[in-house]
C-alpha cells in the first residue's frame, strides 16, 4: 500500500499541476470536504427547521401562501382539547414506554452479560425487532390486536380459559393507548439492551471481585458498581430514546391513526393530520413546533439529571 503511494505521489510532486496544488491547499480542501455534508444539512435540515418555526406563525395552507398571524395558531392550540389530549398522551406514552424499555432492556442486558452457549447468535436474534421496518412490525401488531382474531385473546379465552370474552385492544381509549405503548416497548427493548450490554462489558471484573471479597451481595454489587458505572451510557441512550419516543409517528399512524375518537394521537400524528392530510400547514407546523420545548426539557432532564450524579461521584472519588 505505502509503496504505491510513494511512487505515485513522487510523480505527482515532480509535475504539480495547478489543480493538484489547489486540492492540496488546506483551507480549500477543508471547504471542499465539508461542503457536501454541510450543504445537505443546511438545505434540508437547518432551513426547514427555521421555515417550520416561521410557518407556525402564519396561516399557510396547501396551495396558498400565508400571512404572519403572530401567536394565533398557538392561542388556538391552547384552547383545542385535541391538542391537550395529544400532549397528555405523548407525555404518558413517553414516560411509560421509556420506563418499560429501560427496565426490561437493562434486565435483558444483564442476562446477556452472562456466559452461555450461542451468545452471539442470541444477540443477533434479539436485535431483529429493531432492524425490521417499524411500520411492518406495527402491522403485525395490528393483526395481533385484531378484535376478533387476536391471538392473545385466543390464548386467554380458548386455551387458558382465563377470560370469557375477547379483549377489545384497539376499540376504546385506554386499552388502545396501552396496546400502543406495549408495541413501542417491544420495539425499543433490543436497542436499549444491546447499547447497555456494550456498557456492561466495559466494567472491569476486578471491581466485582473486590466487592465479592468485601462480602457484597448481588444486589449491592448491582446498586453500587453496575448502576453508577452505567450512568453515562444510560444518560445518552435515554436521551435518544426519549427524543425518538416523544416524536414517534410510525407506530401510532400504522396501528390506530390516532383513533379511536382521537384518543391515541401523539403530537406528531396530530401535526400530520392537520398539516399534510388536512392541508393546514401553519397549524400543523405550530403543533410540530410545540414539541420543541418538551424535547429540550426532556433532553436536559435526562442528560443532566443522570450525568450530574456521575460527576458528583467522580468528585467524591478524586
Amino acid at each position, binding site marked *: 500500500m505505502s509503496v504505491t503511494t510513494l511512487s505515485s505521489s513522487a510523480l505527482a510532486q515532480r509535475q504539480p499541476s495547478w489543480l493538484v496544488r489547489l486540492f492540496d491547499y*488546506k483551507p480549500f480542501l477543508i471547504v471542499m*470536504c465539508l461542503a457536501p455534508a*454541510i450543504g445537505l*444539512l443546511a438545505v*434540508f435540515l437547518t432551513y426547514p427547521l427555521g421555515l*417550520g418555526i416561521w410557518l407556525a406563525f402564519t396561516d399557510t395552507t396547501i396551495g396558498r401562501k400565508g400571512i404572519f398571524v403572530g401567536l394565533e395558531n398557538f392561542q388556538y392550540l391552547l384552547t383545542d382539547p385535541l391538542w391537550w389530549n395529544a400532549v397528555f398522551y405523548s407525555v404518558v406514552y413517553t414516560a411509560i414506554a421509556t420506563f418499560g424499555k429501560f427496565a426490561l432492556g437493562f434486565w435483558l442486558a444483564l442476562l446477556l452479560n452472562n456466559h452461555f452457549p450461542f451468545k452471539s447468535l442470541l444477540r443477533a436474534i434479539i436485535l431483529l425487532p429493531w432492524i425490521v421496518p417499524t*411500520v411492518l412490525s406495527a*402491522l403485525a401488531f395490528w393483526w395481533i390486536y385484531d378484535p376478533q382474531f387476536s391471538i392473545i385473546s385466543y390464548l386467554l379465552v380458548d386455551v387458558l380459559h382465563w377470560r370469557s370474552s375477547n379483549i377489545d385492544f384497539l376499540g376504546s381509549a385506554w386499552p388502545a393507548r396501552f396496546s400502543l405503548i406495549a408495541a413501542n416497548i417491544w420495539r425499543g427493548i*433490543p436497542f436499549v439492551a444491546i447499547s447497555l450490554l456494550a456498557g456492561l462489558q466495559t466494567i472491569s471484573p476486578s471491581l466485582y471481585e473486590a466487592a465479592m471479597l468485601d462480602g457484597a451481595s448481588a444486589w449491592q454489587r448491582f446498586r453500587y458498581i453496575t448502576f453508577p458505572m452505567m450512568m453515562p451510557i444510560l444518560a445518552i441512550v435515554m436521551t435518544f430514546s426519549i427524543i425518538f419516543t416523544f416524536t414517534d409517528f410510525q407506530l401510532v*399512524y400504522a396501528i390506530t391513526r390516532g383513533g379511536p375518537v382521537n384518543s391515541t394521537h401523539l403530537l406528531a400524528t396530530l401535526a400530520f393530520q392537520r398539516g399534510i392530510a388536512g392541508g393546514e400547514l401553519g397549524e400543523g407546523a405550530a403543533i410540530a413546533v410545540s414539541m420543541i420545548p418538551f424535547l429540550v426539557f426532556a433532553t436536559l432532564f435526562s442528560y443532566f439529571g443522570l450525568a450530574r450524579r456521575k460527576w458528583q461521584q467522580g468528585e467524591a472519588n478524586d
Partner: protein
Amino acid sequence: MTDTVAQPAVADAKAAPDTMAWDSGLRRLMMIYLPLGCFVLILLFPFYWMAITSFKPNAELLNYKEHNPFWISSPTLAHIKHLLFDTAYPRWLWTTMTVAIGSTTLSLIASTLAAYAIERLRFRGSPYVGLGIYLAYLVPPSILFIPLATVIVQFGLFDSPLALILVYPTFLVPFCTWLLIGYFKSIPYELEECALVDGATRLQILRRITLPLAVPGLISAGIFSFTLSWNEFIYALAFIQSGANKTVPVAILTELVTGDVYQWGALMAGSLLGSLPVAVFYSLFVDYYVSSLTGAVKE
C-alpha cells in the same frame, strides 16, 4: 406454545453435566435461561405470526375453532402470488431499493469527507462543526416534515423518489459522520505523517491510506444507512403521492389496507417480504451492526 415445551428440555441437558452443582444449575435455569427464553419468545413472536399468516389460506386464517392458529395445515403461496402479480409490489420494492442505495451512497460520500476534514484536517473550530453535525442528529423528522414538504414542492421534487434520496441524508449524515470520526481516530496519525513527509498530497492520503484502513467503519456506516433509509416512513408518506412511486412501508399501509375487510394474508406477506431484504442484509453483517450501534452510542 411449542417453545415452552422445548425450553426446559434444553436447559436440563445443560444442567446435567455438572450434577455436583445441581443447585446452582437450577438457579441458573431460573435466573437466566427462563427469563431469556421469555424475552426471545416475546421478541420473536410477532415475526413468527407474520410469517405463518402469510402462508395460511384464508379459510384457516379466520377459523380458530377447527384449525390450530399456531400452525398451518395446508400452506399456500396465494398471498405472495397475489402480491407479486396483482399489485405494484415489485415496483415498490424497486423504488425502495433505489432510494435506499442512492441515499446511502450520497451520505457515505458526504460524511466520509466531512469526518476526514473534522478529524484529520484539523482546523480552528473543527470540534464545533462536529458538535453541530451531532446536534443535527437530535432533530427528529416529526418536527421537520411539514416545512420540508413545502421545500420539496418549491424544488419541484414532490412525488419524486429523488426527493427522498436528497432528504434521507439529513438523518444519515450526522450518524455516519460520527461513526467515521470515531473510526478515523483509531487509525494512527503517524501513517499519514509518513505519507506527508514522502510528499503525498492530502487527497492521495485519504484515498490510499485512510480509506482502506477505514473499510470496516465504512461498511458499518453503509449498512446502517441502508437499513435506516429502508425503514424510513414519515418523509416517504408525506412527499410521495402516486401509488407507483411509494416505498414498501408506505405502500403496504396506504395501498394494501383497503376498505373494512383487511386482507391479513396479503398484508402480512407484504410485511414479510418487505422485512426480508434488511433481515438478510442484517444476517450477513451482524457484527458490523452491533459494533456500529454500540460505537455510535459510546462516542
